[in-house]
């Protein structure tokens, strides 16, 4: 199945703005994060720590709702995942 990842600000510069990611049926957020870390390559340390976990300030959403990075729910085909740094509008 395929999920779409939207990344913003510094993370968009590293990953791209709208990224289709193929994951096996039943995959959870962890599989998406592994794929994103690979995609970020040498710039992954802006998003992930040395152990491969998302840095504490990174905000993660699934279908418009904030989720925890260790969310164990299975993703569904067509889900939209969003990844962004702390907001700075106004």
């Amino acid at each position, binding site marked *: 199945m395929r999920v779409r990842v*939207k990344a913003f600000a510094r993370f968009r510069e590293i990953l791209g703005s709208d990224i289709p990611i193929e994951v096996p049926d039943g995959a959870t957020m962890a599989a998406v994060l592994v794929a994103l870390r690979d995609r970020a390559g040498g710039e992954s340390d802006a998003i992930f720590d040395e152990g491969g976990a998302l840095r504490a300030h990174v905000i993660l959403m699934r279908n418009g709702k904030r989720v925890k990075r260790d969310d164990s729910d299975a993703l569904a085909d067509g889900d939209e995942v969003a990844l*962004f740094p*702390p907001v*700075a*509008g*106004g």
Partner: protein
Amino acid sequence: MIGITRDVIDAGVMIEAAKRPGMGALVTFCGVVRDDGGIERMELEVYEEIAVRELETIRDEAIRKYPIESVDIVHRVGTLFVGETILLIVVGAGHRKEAFAASEYIIDRLKQTVPIWKKEFGRDGQERWVPGEPGDRTSSPPPG
């Protein structure tokens, strides 16, 4: 009116449109691109669906919390130069005190929860993402 725009924000038009007979006070907050150590322009980026939803939530919170009649918020994105309006908040109320209090509440919440980011471009060619507010509270639940 709640919205994200890529066009110039006309404060006069927004204020006139917000007026109702019961209002004795309209307080506006206008955020502007500041020349902060040689800044020439900013590029603002938005997660639009979520930003509109968060702005609507802030409007509803302000109307519940303060005795005010109306809240309008328009935030601009795209490329903005020094002196251009980034956002305009218009709060209409019977009296000024609650309108001032509500407008401060709205801008403080907006800076915490609305997914918008700014990149500054200096006249010297330097680029820099403006750091976000610590303790960001975009949507819920809190991060785990």
